[in-house]
Structure formats: structure tokens, C-alpha cells
């Protein structure tokens, strides 16, 4: 017999909204170092620089020979040794997500770890480990089945990523080549609705040919009133905000007369980010998996003499994101920075190849969301520069500005 669908519940106006909690946050300094690497998508554990013993949980000295420890990438395999389903907790965040499954695993890297366990894994199974960031922004080990199906089916996994499927998204400056690519990628990833902010006055909105879930809205990040007005007019929840706004002009000290460009780069990139974040933070805070995604130049990390003013603006933006990340984490909202190099558009005509295609970059945004990764470098140029910067910031700064 087919079970009948229960009747749709009538909405009660006195229903309390769900308050979002985050998992317990205090960590040791060593653990924060692990989280910083997890934010880049690495799977790392500490290894002794002398005896090469691999250790976990994070320590400050090698437990085998008392030598110095260094972070090193590790094999991702593991075997499940024990499992439990937690049904009682004193923590408010986990209480809201019970039951919660964890397990003890033997990592191929050596140590044994307590991990979040995908619901399809049983004791004795082989697993693939992922080093994720929990809602509090801290590194967390998650065991996934070796044959990856769609982990999104596991509600526990969804706490560590930003699902796009069926979510409402706002994209700023959605009428640029980059913005359009991001909108396309979000639609392809199954977004429920995509609001496309456009800031160019007087230009007819390119509404023709848009899929039905896409809607154009006026949104100019340089105008506080426009930003507050746009958010006030949303008329529904927003789960994800993708900020593609930027103002790119070449020029350093010798180009002359570029103060206005610099001012606009700051107004769009820095103050615009501030205006946007301030307006959307309360909207995102109420959502089960809110995320604020900012697309910024890899030159936020390493200045670029050819684009000195723009790079400075992007550096300021990077700095803002670091602060917002901490602040928004408290409400369970993830702040994701997607870094990229010269894009294949009119802004980078003079920059030597390779350029990154807007569609490739947009795919990077989808990947960052799907992995909940706080920092993602997309494209060869950005990945190369990020790797060099992480290894040696001072040298990278010099050689990049010769």
C-alpha cells in the first residue's frame, strides 16, 4: 500500500525561528595551524623532521624522539576500526544535528584518529579521508566511502560544505563576462534561484535568454542606498552571496593621474565589499548553510607593479575577508575567498598569457562551495603564485615586482 503524503503543515506565525549554533571553537595553536592548511584543501598531519614519525592529534614536539614537527601532506586512505552513533550531547550545535556518527580510524599515514563518519561506512571498511572545516572554521577529519558516490546525501557531510542545489544565490556585477559565467555555473549546479545584481546605469538589462530561475536586480556596490535597497527588496531568503565586483585598471606611481582609478578600485573592491557584507550578513546568518563568496585577485597576496593600485585594493579586500570570516563564522556563515590571476577579459589586455577563462573560474567557485574551502586558488597562475607565496612570501614579493 502506498503511504499517503501527510498534509502540508499550516504555517504558525508564532513559530520560533531556528537559531544557528556553531560547534565548540577553542583549539590549541597547533590545531589552528592544521586548520589553516585545511582551509587550503590540503590533507596534512605533523611529521617529525628527524625520525619521520607522523603524529596526531597535533602536538608541539615529536612523541617518539622529541624532535621538531613539520606539517606534511599525507596519504588519504584509512580503515574503520570502531564506530558509534552519538545520540546525547551537551553541546547545542551537535544537539541540533543528532544523531551524529563518528568512528575510530587507522590512517594510512600512521596515527589513529577519531573522525566524522559517513553513514555508509562500517567497521572494517576502507575510507578516503578529507580534511574539512567545520562550521566553527576548524579542521575536522571526515571519512568518506572509497567509492565516492554523492556525499551530499549524508546530512552530516552537508554541514561541512555549502550546497548549491535548491539554494538561493545573489551574484554581484552579474552583467560582466565573469559575472555571467558565475551565474551560468550556479544555474548548472542546480541553484533554486539566482539574483543577478547589475550596476551599469542606463544600460538595458540583458534579460533575454536568461533561464527562468535568473532574475536581474539593480545593485551598485559603490552606492550604500542601492545595496540596502537591493537587500531589502529580496523578498526571500538568500543562502549564498557571490561577489564578483571589481574595478581593474593598470598603473603604478609612474603612470600618473590614476588616483581616481585607485579611488574607484577601493570603492568597488573594498568599500563595496563592506557595504555588501554588512547588508547580507544578517540575511545569511539565519540560513542552514550560508556562505559569502568573494572573488579576488591573487595579487591580493602579492602586489603587482603593473596593477599597483588595483592590487592594493585587492589586498585590502583580502584583509577584510579575514576579519569577516571570523565574525561571520560565529553565525555559521562560511566566508570563501576564491583567488585568480589575469582573466580573459578587456581588463587584462596587456597581461601576458595564460589568462583564465571566466567559465573555468566560475567552476572554481562551484568547487570551493562543494568543498567548503575557505581559500581556493583557481587557474595555473593563481595556483602557482599561491604555492610560491605560501612557501616563501618575501621572495615571491620580490620576484613578482621586479
Amino acid at each position, binding site marked *: 500500500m502506498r503511504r499517503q503524503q501527510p498534509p502540508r503543515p499550516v504555517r504558525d506565525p508564532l513559530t520560533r525561528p531556528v537559531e544557528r549554533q556553531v560547534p565548540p571553537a577553542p583549539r590549541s595553536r597547533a590545531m589552528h595551524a592544521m586548520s589553516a592548511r585545511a582551509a587550503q584543501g590540503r590533507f596534512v598531519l605533523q611529521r617529525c623532521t628527524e625520525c619521520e614519525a607522523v603524529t596526531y592529534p597535533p602536538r608541539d614536539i615529536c612523541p617518539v624522539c622529541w624532535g621538531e614537527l613539520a606539517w606534511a601532506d599525507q596519504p588519504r586512505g584509512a580503515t574503520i576500526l570502531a564506530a558509534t552513533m552519538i545520540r546525547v550531547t551537551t553541546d547545542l550545535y551537535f544537539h541540533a544535528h543528532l544523531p551524529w556518527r563518528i568512528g575510530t580510524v587507522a590512517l594510512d599515514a600512521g596515527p589513529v584518529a577519531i573522525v566524522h563518519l559517513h553513514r555508509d561506512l562500517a567497521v572494517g571498511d576502507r575510507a578516503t579521508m578529507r580534511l574539512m572545516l567545520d562550521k566553527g572554521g576548524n579542521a575536522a577529519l571526515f571519512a568518506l566511502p572509497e567509492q565516492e558516490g554523492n556525499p551530499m546525501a549524508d546530512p552530516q557531510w552537508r554541514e561541512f560544505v555549502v550546497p548549491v542545489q535548491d539554494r538561493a544565490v545573489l551574484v554581484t556585477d552579474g552583467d560582466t563576462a565573469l559575472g555571467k559565467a558565475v551565474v551560468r555555473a550556479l544555474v548548472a549546479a542546480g541553484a533554486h534561484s539566482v539574483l543577478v545584481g547589475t550596476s551599469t*546605469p*542606463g*544600460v*538595458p538589462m540583458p534579460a533575454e535568454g536568461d533561464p527562468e530561475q535568473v532574475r536581474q536586480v*539593480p545593485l*551598485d556596490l*559603490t*552606492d*550604500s*542606498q*542601492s545595496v540596502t535597497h537591493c537587500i531589502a527588496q529580496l523578498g526571500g531568503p538568500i543562502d549564498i552571496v557571490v561577489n564578483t565586483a571589481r574595478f581593474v585598471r593598470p598603473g603604478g606611481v609612474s603612470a600618473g*593621474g590614476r588616483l*581616481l582609478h585607485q579611488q*574607484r578600485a577601493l570603492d568597488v573592491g573594498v568599500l563595496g565589499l563592506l557595504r555588501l557584507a554588512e547588508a547580507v550578513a544578517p540575511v545569511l546568518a539565519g540560513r542552514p548553510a550560508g556562505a559569502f563568496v568573494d572573488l579576488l585577485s591573487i595579487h591580493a597576496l602579492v602586489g603587482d607593479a603593473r596593477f599597483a593600485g588595483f592590487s592594493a585594493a585587492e589586498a585590502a579586500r583580502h584583509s577584510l575577508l579575514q576579519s569577516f570570516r571570523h565574525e561571520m563564522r560565529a553565525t555559521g556563515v562560511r566566508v570563501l575567498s576564491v583567488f585568480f590571476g589575469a582573466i580573459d577579459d578587456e581588463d587584462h589586455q596587456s597581461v601576458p598569457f595564460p589568462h583564465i577563462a571566466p567559465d573555468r573560474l566560475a567552476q572554481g567557485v562551484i568547487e570551493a562551495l562543494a568543498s567548503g574551502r575557505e581559500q581556493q586558488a583557481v587557474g595555473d597562475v593563481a595556483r602557482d603564485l599561491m604555492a610560491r607565496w605560501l612557501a616563501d612570501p618575501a621572495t615571491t614579493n620580490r620576484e613578482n615586482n621586479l
Partner: protein
Amino acid sequence: MTDPADALAALVDGLAAGAIRVVDLTNTLSPDFPVIVLPAEFGQCAPFRMEPVSRYDGDGPAWYWNNISMNEHTGTHFDAPAHWITGRDLPEGTVDRVAPRDFVHPAVVIDISAESAADEDFVVTRALLEAWEARHGRIPPRHWVLLRTDWYKRVGTPEYLNLKADGAHSPGPDGDAMRFLVHARDCVGLGVETVGTDAGQASRFDEPLPAHTILHGNGRYGLQCLTNLDKLPVFGAVILASPLKIQGGSGSPLRVVALVAGRAG
């Protein structure tokens, strides 16, 4: 001539009695009021922006005020001679040096709204002006010449700037028309409803941007983004247009009003 004191008293009485009306020719300054868009190689005009400092809140419990920013040529605005290279050496070329006497001048309104509706690139020629004079009479000296195009009715739509792939499209004068107005008719300046005194495509004219070139090279002024010109008589309106006293400024947003005889129809 009437006694000046009597004249002022009559003006005040007229205003009080409603026999003289004040018509606002100014568009509202707001962040979304469009500004002129130049080709990409040039610097751009900043739109109006407003950030609240306090609004009866912690930053000012009992008072409300904003910081505002804009270009000198944002919204309804005044062009001083120094705005153009032809006027850069004039002694009274910047807004702080404009003679107060020039804040008040009569106006003549030339209606080209029908022509503009038919052709958004309509060009005002000397021939058109002469034909107009044949119908309405000679343009008197020391008057603002106001071009009524009804363009202000497009404010709030993309058709106001009317940007196309090849730039803006809006009516304006050619060089001969400007020389006629400045040299033969000694106008105070040219006032328009569009975003510039020159036509949208005037940079492509054989003699590019003639209104700016000729007006400002001869110490005359421009008023742009005016509104309500259709509410003014052909002759007889008096324009009050006093730009902000910006040191060395090339122009200024301002409130422009017209004094018009007669009760509202």
C-alpha cells in the same frame, strides 16, 4: 525705470500673492541619477553618493546628517568657462569667480521637443534659430537660451542617457548655431534638459563639441539636466542659478529655479 526698492517690493508682493510663480528646474540628486558616460579612455564622472553620518542614533542622538560626494557635473549642474580648454585662461572662469550678477538672468525658451521626439540626434542649426526668431521674435541679449526637448521626461529610464553601442544619442546645437547665439545674440549661456549642452553624438561633428567650445571660450555658461522647461513661457522667465563657491571649481550642482509671471494654469 522704477525705483529699485519698489521693484524688489513688487517682486516680493508678486511672489506672496502668487502672481509670480517659482518653477523648480532642478532634478533630484540621488545615487541613481545618471551621469555622463565618456568613452573608456577618459576619466569618468562620479555619480551622487550619500553616506549617513547619524540619524537620531548613537552617532548623533538628536540630529540627522549625511556626507555626500559627487562630481562637479553631477545632476542638475552649472558649467563654468574653465570647464573647457577654450575657457581656461578667462579671469572669471571658475565657479568661485563667476560674477554674482550672472546668478540672475532672464531666459528665452526654444521648443524643439517635437523635432527631438522625431529624431533623437536632432541638431539645432543657425537656420533653425533664425526661423524660430521669424516666428517668435528676436532673441534678446544677456538671456539664458533654454532648449526645451522634453528630455527630462525620460529621467529614470535608460532612454535618458540613451546610450547605444556608438555612444549617447541626444539633441544639441552645431557650431554655427552656437556662434550665432554667443556672438550675434550675446546669450548668457545655454540651458538644456539633457546631460550635456552638446548633442550626444557631438564629439563626432566636423566641429566637435561646439557648445562647450564656443560657450566657454567666450565666458558663457552651461546649465544641464534641467527639468520642467515645458512649464516656462517663451519669453519672460527669470532664471536664478547660483553655483556653489568652489575654489577653482569647473562647475557645480545647484538648485535652478525660474520666476514666472502669472498664476499657475
